């Protein structure tokens, strides 16, 4: 004891320094931990999402409502940034404290989530409860289905949509594009607008965003990857240089050359310019709808995504994201996640969701909700994306791409699109992207043991 005392006397500074560090550390860690814990008695359900702007606001409202509606679970939302980041975040955190109980992940990640084995198929809960899933739009379900098993629940479902400024068209006396337009229909409007406004208004913008490219292919029933876009096996080759790919990109490049096209670089900028009446047409997710409708009102024009001339529209696959339930959490947490999922997709909430964001209500019953009916009556063009969705018959090319690592492909395509907009050769640019991605695909398949 005396020895210990002496030891302490001699090294008291060391001890006290260590103690200070320890206390600060523990205090702080404890504090941070306590912040993460749910209110007493509730099961905490961490929800990762990637919703921004109006979507985020509405989603937070839903979560608050859900938390108030029952006392068993508490959903904690955590914003994770872009769709692109979140796939790897899931891969990297699975099995740790940091991972979510339920997360939102985009259409093209379906394959990777499926292969990872990190999630519980929604089908399990549906079967257990005999939940009537037929109420959910089949095209939307198609994106998240494998072997007749629903892997994830579609939540924010969108369509690529063509927006035009009807007010501007009226001002310059231009006939609006038809409902199911071809490339030439759009060219006509864009050119007329550009010319008649004395080049003050740009005719069209197509963001260098791979999703738009993918939908050009879908709408012409062209494969993105072999094995039916991966739906019938592991894709080993991609195809970025098919006739539609070339045709669509040449079409855009022609617009660049003529001058009626402008690349605004980002979705944000594009939207801002469109709202300020300096751009006639742009193509983006239907989720822009709420902001655009608020900004332009009756002057907003909406029509289907364009198709190549002389080709029947095949319809486009749904975009957006679905909800996945992780399998590294307890049964109770998973149950909570499922309850929350059901809450989000009930007819009323889906109707409110569409009204607030422009994402399409996937619950068929939502159409009967007064809130949607009223808004359709007020602004009929709001209905166009869901009409577009209904007009399509599900097949392999319009049911998403079931290939691992499409994120990388997207960045290659984006790069190719930017090159094409800058005047580089269409075929060469696409071919380079295709070759690069084929190599990635090959080594990825090899690394995962899917091919030898």
């Amino acid at each position: 004891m005396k020895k210990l005392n002496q030891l302490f006397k001699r090294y008291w500074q060391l001890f006290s320094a260590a103690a200070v560090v320890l206390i600060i550390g523990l205090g702080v860690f404890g504090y941070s931990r306590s912040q993460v814990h749910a209110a007493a008695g509730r099961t905490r359900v961490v929800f990762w999402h990637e919703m921004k702007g109006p979507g985020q606001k509405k989603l937070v409202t839903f979560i608050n409502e859900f938390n108030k509606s029952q006392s068993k679970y508490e959903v904690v939302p955590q914003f994770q940034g872009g769709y692109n980041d979140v796939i790897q975040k899931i891969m990297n955190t699975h099995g740790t404290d940091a991972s979510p109980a339920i997360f939102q992940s985009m259409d093209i990640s379906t394959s990777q989530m499926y292969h990872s084995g990190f999630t519980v198929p929604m089908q399990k809960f549906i079967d257990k409860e005999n939940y009537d899933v037929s109420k959910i739009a089949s095209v939307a379900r198609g994106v998240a289905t494998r072997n007749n098993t629903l892997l994830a629940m579609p939540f924010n479902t969108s369509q690529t949509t063509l927006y035009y400024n009807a007010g501007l068209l009226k001002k310059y006396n231009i006939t609006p594009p038809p409902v199911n337009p071809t490339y030439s229909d759009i060219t006509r409007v864009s050119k007329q607008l550009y010319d008649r406004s004395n080049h003050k208004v740009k005719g069209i913008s197509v963001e260098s965003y791979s999703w738009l490219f993918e939908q050009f292919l879908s709408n012409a029933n062209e494969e993105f990857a072999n094995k039916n876009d991966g739906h019938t096996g592991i894709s080993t080759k991609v195809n970025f240089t098919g006739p539609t790919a070339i045709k669509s990109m040449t079409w855009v490049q022609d617009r660049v050359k003529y001058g009626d096209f402008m690349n605004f670089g980002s979705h944000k900028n594009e939207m801002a310019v469109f709202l300020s009446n300096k751009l006639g047409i742009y193509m983006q997710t239907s989720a822009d709808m709420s902001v655009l409708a608020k900004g332009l009102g009756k002057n907003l024009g909406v029509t289907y995504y364009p198709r190549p001339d002389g080709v029947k529209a095949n319809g486009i696959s749904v975009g957006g994201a679905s909800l996945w339930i992780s399998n590294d959490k307890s049964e109770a947490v998973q149950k909570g996640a499922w309850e929350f999922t059901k809450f989000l997709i009930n007819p009323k909430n889906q109707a409110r969701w569409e009204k607030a964001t422009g994402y399409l209500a996937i619950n068929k019953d939502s159409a009967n909700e007064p809130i949607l009916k009223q808004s359709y009556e007020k602004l009929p063009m709001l209905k166009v994306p869901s009409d577009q969705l209904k007009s399509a018959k599900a097949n392999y090319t319009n049911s998403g791409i079931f290939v691992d690592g499409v994120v990388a492909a997207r960045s290659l395509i984006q790069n190719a699109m930017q090159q094409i907009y800058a005047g580089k050769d269409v075929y060469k640019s696409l071919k380079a992207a295709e070759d690069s991605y084929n190599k990635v695909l090959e080594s990825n398949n090899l690394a995962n043991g899917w091919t030898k």
Partner: protein
Amino acid sequence: MIESLPSTKQQPKGPEANQEITAKVKSFELKKNDKYYAWLFLGPSILLLTVFVFFPMLRTLYLSLFLTDTFGNPTVFVGLKNYAILLKSTSYIASLKATGTYVISVSIFTIIFGLLLAALANQKLRGIGFFRNIFTATMGVSVSVSAVFWLFMFNPSIGILNKVVTAFGFHPIAWLTTPGWAMTAVIATTVWMHLGFTFLLFFGALQAVPKSLYDAASVSGASSRYQFWHITLPMISPTMFFVAVITLISGFKSFGLIDLMTGGGPTNATNLLVYRVYKDAFMNGNYAQASTEAIFLTIIIAIITFVQFKLLAKRVNY
């Protein structure tokens, strides 16, 4: 202190001799104990550096020799194939070139502007303190804050820069979405961010030049311009070298600004090395390739750092 040592009390000799002997014994014991103290003192640092620096380096090297699966596990040994792929990849070469352009421009412009500011602030003028304070201001600005400030200026529709451009009758410029301009924008922002710090360094260096050197030069007939080139520059050359090295290294490590301003685009024009590593690993999930890129990055930075050590040891000018 000494009284408390039991050995002293047992010594029957006089107090002075007593102390001396104790000290000797003590110091001998200490030398023997050094080993344990060394473990105690250095152990934590060595352990941390091993776990978080050396091991990861080896692991990265190891990963770069494999293909990795969805979960980042090395599965198929491919030897140096990843390196070969990278060196043949036009986009990687383009990234290397972009990084080269970026780091070299950043260091050159940082040095030029930093020196210009410092030289001006070193003048004896009324109210110069005010300017000195302004010039150091950007030191407090972190990457994300700089990015926010400059993103607003580069905004194509409401940004101030395009207002200026259009006021002069030019077409508005898509600053961050045209390859050349995006690089320019990123360089400008980086230089601006470095400016305060560089200014401080150069200003300190200028102030450290003995005034008598200038007096001597002006008496012996040198104009102020001549003095700048023949006294100031040689005298502050170590600082210039130092600034060049740190801006080069931090340039190679640049990540935040790229992430916030351009995301590596457009057409990979600003897809700098670190951003690429991040993107390939944490977006595309291609850990093997990202590791290979990380090894290249390490080699480049290691070379620069090594050169820095060597040259600093020798000193640059005298």
